[in-house]
C-alpha cells in the first residue's frame, strides 16, 4: 500500500492512499469469488483503475476446510494507472484457517490482516494441519496489523431473527466481510444493496439476509472504529467514456461477435469444453441472435472440423480451446492451411505439459502455435496483452484470417481469461469494417489463383453457380488447385504459403514500446506479461535506469520494425511464463544474445520480480 497521509502531523480519520491490493480468501464454499467481484464493481464505480486475479482450485467443490479447497480473489485498485493485480496484498481477509495458512506468506509486512476467528475451530485447524491455533502466536500481531473478528458469530447474530437456518445464515458471512471492506474504503453502498436484491431476486429471504449481513459488517467498522481511520483512493485519471468490467474470456466472446459483424459474416463457433476456455463457448451460446451459431462438438477435432466446414461454406469459423485441445486440433489446422481457408483458433493457455495445471496460467504454447503441425505449415500468431485487449486481438485475428485466407492463432491465457479490468467500451461505428468478399465471377476463376498483394486465393461460397470446384489436403497445382505431385510445384507452393504469412508483416503497425529507443536494457514481452513489464519498466525508469520495453502483439510474422529496434540496446531480456520460447525466436531471427527470464509457476510475474531482474542488468545512471 503506497500511502501518503494528507496531514502528516495529526492522523486524520480518512487516509488517502494511491493504490491498495486486497485479497479475499476462504473456503471454496465461502463465496470469495462473489465477494471479490462485488468489491471490484464498487471500486470501478468509484472510478479507480484496477486489475483483478481470481485464483480457485481445480476441484469443483473440494471438501470444506481443506488446504486444496482454498479459493482467493485479489484486486489492485488505485488512483494511477494499474497494470497488474498487485504483487502482494496490503490487506488480507482470511475466512478460515486453511485460507489463512495458504495466503499469509503473501501478505506485505505490516499489512492489515483480518481473520474470521469463528472459523478457527478444532476441526478446521486440524484440516489445515495446525497443531495449535496460529492466531495465538504473539508475533503475528507484531508482524501485521491483526484484526481478529468472529465474523461467523456476528453474522449469525445479525440474522438471529431472520428465520434462516444456521447453515444458510452461515453462508452470509462473506457479505458481512464485504460490508466491512465497503466501510474501510468508503464505498458507496446503495448500488450494492440493489445488486444483492437483484442477485437473489428469486430467494428474497436470502437477499434480505445478505443485506443484513452486509450492513452489519459496515456498521461494525463504523461503530468499532477498527483502525481509527478509513482509507480513500482517489479516482484515477481515466479517459472519458462509458466503462464496464470485462474478463479476457468475455472480451474474447464479444470480440468474436463484433468480428462477425465487421466482416459481415455469420459466425460459426465449434468447440469442446476445456478449462480455462469454456466460458467463451458459454458466452457465445447466449448470443445466437447476433448471427452466431455455437456447436458443442464431441471432441476438439470435431470442434475445429466443424469450424473449417463452416468457413468453407462462407462463415467466420472460430474455435477456442486450451493446450491439450490444440495438440488434438493440429492435423485439422494443417488442412485449413493447405486449403487456405479463414479460421480463428483461440488458445487460452494453461499450465502444462499434459493435463498439467488446468486452472493456472502459462505461456508455454507459443512454439507449438508456430511449429506444432507436420510439414511446412505456417500460421500467423497474435497474442492479447490484457483482458480487454482480447477483444481487439480476436477481431484482428478475424480480419487477417479473412483478408489472407488463412487460419490465425490468437493466444490468450488463464490469467487474462479470468482476470478483469475496466474497459472503455468502443462504439461499433468506430471499429473499421472488413467485409468479406466472395468471388462469384466464373470468368477466369483459378482455384488457387492469388491476389498479387496479399497472395490470398479467392473465397468461393458453395452455392455459387459456375464455380464448382474440388479441394483437399493433398498438394495442389498452384493455379488450378488440382492434385499435383509435381516436384517444382510443391517447392513453390511451400514457398508461397510461407510468403503469404510472411507478408502479413505489413499489418503489424507501430511497435508497442515504453521508453526511449536506446539504452542499457530492452525488455521484450508478449501476451499477458504486458501489465507487469510495463509497471516494472516505469518504476525502474523512475529510478534512473536506462531500460525500455517492447511488447509483441504479433508473434508470427514478427513486426518488421523489431529487428532494427533491438539494435539500440546493450542487453535484451525476455520475461516469459515458460522455459524460454520467444527468446529462441529472437535469437534465431536476429542473432542477438537475448536472455530469458522464466517463471513457470502457473502465476503471473510480480512487478518486484521484474524490477529486480531489470536492476541487475541496467545500472542506475547518475546524471
Amino acid at each position, binding site marked *: 500500500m503506497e500511502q501518503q497521509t494528507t496531514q502528516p502531523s495529526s492522523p486524520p480519520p480518512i487516509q488517502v492512499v494511491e493504490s491498495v491490493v486486497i485479497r479475499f480468501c476462504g473456503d471454496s464454499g465461502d463465496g470469495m469469488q462473489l465477494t471479490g467481484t462485488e468489491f471490484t464493481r464498487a471500486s470501478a464505480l468509484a472510478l479507480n483503475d484496477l486489475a483483478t486475479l481470481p485464483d480457485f482450485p481445480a476441484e469443483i467443490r473440494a471438501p470444506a476446510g481443506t488446504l486444496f479447497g482454498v479459493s482467493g480473489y485479489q484486486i489492485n485498485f488505485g488512483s494511477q494507472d494499474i497494470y497488474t493485480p498487485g504483487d502482494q496484498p496490503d490487506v488480507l481477509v482470511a475466512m478460515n484457517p486453511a485460507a489463512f495458512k495458504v495466503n499469509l506468506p503473501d501478505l506485505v509486512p505490516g499489512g492489515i490482516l483480518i481473520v474470521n476467528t469463528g472459523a478457527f475451530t478444532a476441526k478446521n485447524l486440524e484440516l489445515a494441519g495446525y497443531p495449535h491455533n496460529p492466531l495465538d502466536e504473539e508475533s503475528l500481531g507484531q508482524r501485521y496489523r491483526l484484526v481478529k473478528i468472529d465474523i461467523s458469530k456476528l453474522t449469525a447474530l445479525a440474522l438471529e431473527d431472520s428465520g434462516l437456518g444456521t447453515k444458510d445464515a452461515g453462508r452470509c458471512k462473506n457479505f458481512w466481510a464485504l460490508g466491512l471492506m465497503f466501510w474501510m474504503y468508503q464505498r458507496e453502498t446503495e448500488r450494492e444493496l440493489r445488486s444483492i436484491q437483484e442477485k437473489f431476486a428469486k430467494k428474497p429471504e436470502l437477499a434480505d439476509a445478505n443485506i443484513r449481513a452486509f450492513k452489519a459488517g459496515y456498521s461494525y467498522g463504523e461503530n468499532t472504529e477498527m483502525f481509527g481511520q478509513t482509507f480513500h483512493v482517489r479516482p484515477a485519471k481515466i479517459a472519458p467514456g462509458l466503462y*464496464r468490467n470485462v474478463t479476457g474470456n468475455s472480451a474474447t466472446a464479444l470480440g468474436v461477435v463484433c468480428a462477425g459483424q465487421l466482416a459481415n459474416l455469420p459466425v460459426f463457433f465449434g468447440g469442446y469444453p476445456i478449462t480455462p476456455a469454456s466460458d467463451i463457448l458459454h458466452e457465445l451460446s447466449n448470443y445466437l441472435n447476433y448471427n452466431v451459431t455455437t456447436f458443442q462438438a464431441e471432441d476438439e477435432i470435431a470442434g475445429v472440423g466443424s469450424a473449417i466446414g463452416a468457413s468453407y461454406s462462407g462463415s467466420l469459423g472460430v474455435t477456442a480451446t486450451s493446450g491439450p485441445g490444440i495438440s488434438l486440433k493440429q492435423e485439422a489446422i494443417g488442412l485449413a492451411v493447405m486449403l487456405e481457408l479463414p479460421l480463428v483458433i483461440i488458445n487460452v493457455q494453461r499450465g502444462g505439459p499434459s493435463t498439467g495445471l488446468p486452472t493456472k496460467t502459462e505461456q508455454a504454447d507459443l512454439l507449438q502455435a508456430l511449429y506444432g503441425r507436420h510439414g511446412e505449415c505456417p500460421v500467423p500468431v497474435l497474442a492479447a496483452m490484457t483482458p480487454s485487449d482480447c477483444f481487439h486481438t480476436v477481431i484482428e485475428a478475424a480480419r487477417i484470417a479473412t483478408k489472407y485466407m488463412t487460419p490465425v492463432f490468437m493466444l490468450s491465457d488463464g490469467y487474462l481469461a479470468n482476470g478483469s479490468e475496466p474497459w472503455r467500451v468502443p462504439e461499433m461505428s468506430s471499429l473499421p469494417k472488413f467485409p468479406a468478399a466472395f468471388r462469384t465471377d466464373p470468368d477466369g476463376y483459378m482455384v488457387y489463383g492469388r491476389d498479387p498483394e496479399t497472395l490470398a486465393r479467392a473465397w468461393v461460397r458453395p452455392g455459387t453457380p459456375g464455380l464448382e470446384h474440388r*479441394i483437399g*489436403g493433398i498438394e495442389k497445382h498452384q493455379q488450378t488447385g488440382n492434385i499435383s505431385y509435381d516436384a517444382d510445384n510443391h517447392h513453390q507452393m511451400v514457398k508461397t504459403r510461407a510468403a503469404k504469412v510472411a507478408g502479413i508483416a505489413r499489418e503489424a503497425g507501430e511497435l508497442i514500446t515504453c521508453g526511449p529507443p536506446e539504452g542499457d536494457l530492452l525488455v521484450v514481452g508478449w501476451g499477458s506479461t504486458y501489465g507487469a513489464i510495463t509497471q516494472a519498466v516505469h518504476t525502474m525508469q523512475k529510478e534512473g535506469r536506462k531500460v525500455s520495453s517492447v511488447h509483441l502483439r504479433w508473434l508470427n510474422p514478427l513486426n518488421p520494425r523489431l529487428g532494427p529496434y533491438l539494435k539500440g540496446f546493450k542487453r535484451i531480456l525476455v520475461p516469459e511464463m515458460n522455459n524460454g520460447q520467444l527468446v529462441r525466436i529472437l535469437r534465431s531471427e536476429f542473432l542477438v544474445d537475448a536472455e530469458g527470464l522464466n517463471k513457470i509457476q502457473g502465476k503471473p510475474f510480480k512487478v518486484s520480480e521484474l524490477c529486480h531482474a531489470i536492476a541487475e542488468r541496467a545500472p542506475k545512471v547518475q546524471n
Partner: protein
Amino acid sequence: MSTTDNSTPLVKPALSRKDFVSNQEPRWCPGCGDYSILAQVQKVMPDFGIPREKIVFVSGIGCSSRFPYYMNTYGFHTIHGRAPTIATGIKVSRPDLTVWMATGDGDSLAIGGNHLIHILRRNVGIKIILFNNRIYGLTKGQYSPTSELGKKTKSTPGGSLDHPFSTLSVVIGAEGTFVARSIDTELQHLQAMLKRAGDHKGTALLEVYQNCPVFNDDAFVYITEKTNKADRVLYLEHGKPLVFGKDKNKGIRIGKNFTPEVVEVGEGPGQVPLSEIAVHDETVENPSYAFMLSRMEWPEFPVPIGVLRNVIRPAYEELVAAQKERMVATRGQGNVDKLLRSGETWVIEPEN
C-alpha cells in the same frame, strides 16, 4: 437493370448424368467397385432436381474418399476420419446446401468412428455413402474394422483377431434414422437406395458392399454370385414379408427372446404359414427391429439388402436454425453496441 428482365430463362434445362462428371480422371484400379458406385451416383443425381452448385460432396481419406474429385459439384476431400465433422459444419451453417459424404470402412469405422456415431445421433442432414470393402485400400491392404475374423492381411499374417463391427448395428446403436445397404454390382438396387438416401431428412447412411479387386477380391462373392444370390440375399421391401430364396419359400420368423430364425414358408408339415413370417416395416419407431435385421449374416441368415430403418426425427440443422430464430424472436436481432454496453457500466465524464 430491370427486375423483370426476361432474357434469363427462369427454368434451367434439366441436368443429365454427364453434367455430374468432372474433368478429373478417376484414379482407381481397374475393376474397382468404386467405379460403379460413382456411375450410379452420377446417374441418379439429376433426379433430385438440385442444381450442381447447391451440392457438396465431402470425404475423408481412402480410395473411396477420392470420390469428390470426380463429381462436377462442390467437393471437399478432407482428412482421415474427419469428414463428418466438416460436413456438419457445412450443413449446420448452410442448410440450403445438399451435402453428401463418401467414406470407407476404415475412414468411418476406424479413425472416424466417433464422428460417425455423433453425426448419426444428432441427425445432421448428410447423406453418407459408406464404401465397405472390408479392407484398407489406399494403404495397400490392411484389415479394417469390418474385416472378418481370421483375415490374413499385410498387418495380420497370422490372421486378424479383432471381432468385426456390423456396420449397421453400430449405426442403429448410434440412433441412425435412415439405415440402408446395397451392393456395388446391383446397379438398379443401388440407384434406388441412393435415391432413397438422398430424399431423407437427417442423416442417411447407405452402406455399399464394394469389391476391391486388388486387396480383397471377391469379398462379397458369397452373396453376389448368381447361383447363390437368391438364397443368400434378403431384399427388404416395406410392407412385404421377409421371404427369400429362388422360390421365395424361405422366411424369417421371430422366435423367443427376439431371436430371428429362418423357416420354410408354406402350409405343409414342418413349414410355417406366411402369416407367421415377419412383415418388413422400415418405419418402426423402436429401432430394435431394425437392429435385429442388422445382425443377420450369412451363413446363419440371408444378408438383408435395402432400407432397414427409415424414421423421421428433426434434422439437427433445422433445430439449430429454429433455436436461433426463437432467440431472435424473443430478444430481437442483436445490437452489438447494446451488447457491449450490457451489464454494469459507468461513465467517466470529460474533465472540463
